């Protein structure tokens, strides 16, 4: 089993909340993603066994959404919003700055597996642009100075 006992228990708890079991697919995928950091066919199978929802229905849903990737990512997933409000305040140059600082291109992971850099669609921080999300935390009103400090802090924590 890839899923821990804790994850299985959490999925079973969620299952109780829905009148129809299929509704648990997204919550279950979220629980699995939070534990493992990516999804896989094996994980779909395990979710299917736990929830009794057919594998194919789990795979079908998982591949539609952006938050259930199959590719492993770095410990810190940096997601920079590139939509209009952030772009007006320098999202493109923020991405360039991060590429330079991390020594990778957008879409890549640093060799030490610490950082993955991607750009994403609007994250609802339009009046605090530019912004990035790292794992589940939002970092807003970004400046070069702030980005430097955030990366240093994460490196020190890792």
């Amino acid at each position: 089993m890839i899923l821990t006992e804790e994850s299985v228990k959490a999925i079973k708890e969620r299952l109780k909340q829905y009148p129809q079991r299929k509704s648990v697919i997204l919550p279950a995928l979220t629980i699995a993603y939070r534990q493992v950091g990516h999804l896989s066919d094996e994980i779909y199978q395990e979710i299917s066994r736990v929830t009794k929802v057919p594998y194919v229905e789990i795979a079908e849903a998982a591949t539609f959404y952006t938050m259930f990737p199959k590719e492993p990512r770095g410990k810190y997933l940096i997601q920079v919003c590139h939509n209009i409000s952030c772009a007006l305040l320098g999202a493109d140059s923020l991405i360039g700055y991060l590429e330079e600082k991390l020594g990778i291109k957008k879409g890549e992971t640093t060799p030490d597996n610490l950082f993955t850099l991607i750009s994403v669609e609007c994250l609802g921080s339009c009046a605090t642009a530019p912004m990035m999300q790292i794992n589940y935390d939002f970092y807003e009103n970004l400046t070069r100075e702030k980005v430097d400090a955030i990366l240093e802090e994460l490196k020190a924590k890792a």
Partner: protein
Amino acid sequence: MSFYSPVITNAAEVARSESLHLFRYVEDPDQYKVETFEKHGGYEAWKKVVTSMKPDQVIAEVKNSGLRGRGGAGFPTGMKWGFVPKDSPKARYLICNADESEPGTCKDRVIMERDPHAVIEGMAIGAFAIGCHRMFIYIRGEFGHCIERMEGAVKEAYTRGHLGKNVYGSGYDLDMVVHSGGGAYICGEETALLNSLEGEKGLSRIRPPFPAIAGLYASPTIVNNVETLAAVPHIINRGADWYKTMGTEKSAGSKIFSLSGHVKRPGNYEVPLGFSLKTLIYDEKYGAGIRDGKKLKAVIPGGASTPFLTPDMVDVGLDYESLQSVGSMLGSGAIIVLDEDTCIVWTIMKLIHFFRHESCGKCTPCREGTGWLEQLVTRIEHGEGRPGDIDKIDDLCGNILGRTICPLGDAAVMPIQSAIKLFRDEWQYHIDHKKCPCPNNHEFK
């Protein structure tokens, strides 16, 4: 880092106001706690509704208030609730749409992070009005903090007896589920949201049947936006007539506007509907004018899917009818301000990229059309446009508009059509001179 978004709000002004209400306590760091919320009068409306009112009375009050959906469509809320069949033997569902993801919109997130019980209370009242005993809030998956906040608030609400079996001894049972999405803009469209909540891909459904008749699990379902529901307890407490003292005749009440882009003070501001867009952009209390001494070039007044306004058009009221009269829409109330250095084609390139990425792929005009549009617009912006490209874009837009199941196709093309109408010379310049004429110096500091 802070749990809260550091976004600027006009909470202090709202607290002084006799009528504005949504942002009254959002700067109080304890407002998310149930005790603080109760101390501020929270859950009184819910208690009144469930212990002393009939569902029809609740619907009538909300109908009379003139409250309209704040998610973008502006449909009258009370009327929507009234569509739920009274004699259906099926369970009914109320869903709060917290899939906030229209570029430029960042208001629901602030309500959920800072005043989550306001959302629960509004939902509870809506649920009672339609006879629902299990309500859902669908929060976009990326909003990890909001999800945590709402889950915490729901737990507290159960503990204090605001939710659960036999609420306040009324005999009414009400449960609430916090559901998180998986990252897809389309799930903010109510029928796609229903599919997503059922564990399906987020594809929109053909209407009819409307969700009020056959929605979640084919049962009568009402989907309302976060801000809409947060206004409901205030309407119950203070009455429909009070609510109508704000706003205009057809656009009653107040609304939160998310002001972003090239203003000095971007932020979330609650003002009465009908408030002047010009004041919101230029007044020191709000946007405080355009950054770096630049001039205004254009405004997108209602989120990424609404037509542009030029500087001569910004002396307009922020309400459904006034914005319609100048060819645009109130939408979600997301005002995006562009300074004179910004290229319109570049702006459209950013917008159409979003819609191409977020098209669910169900309807051919939208799936294929947004891709073609992105290619054409990108090549024009990069100085590779060909004669006839503008007309081709216009033609494509005409073949998407009104030809898709859900409004995403319309949303993608309306800003483009208006950008061509208002700034055709600028598009032509790109093609004739094979380059973009604008500085576009959007450096981050």
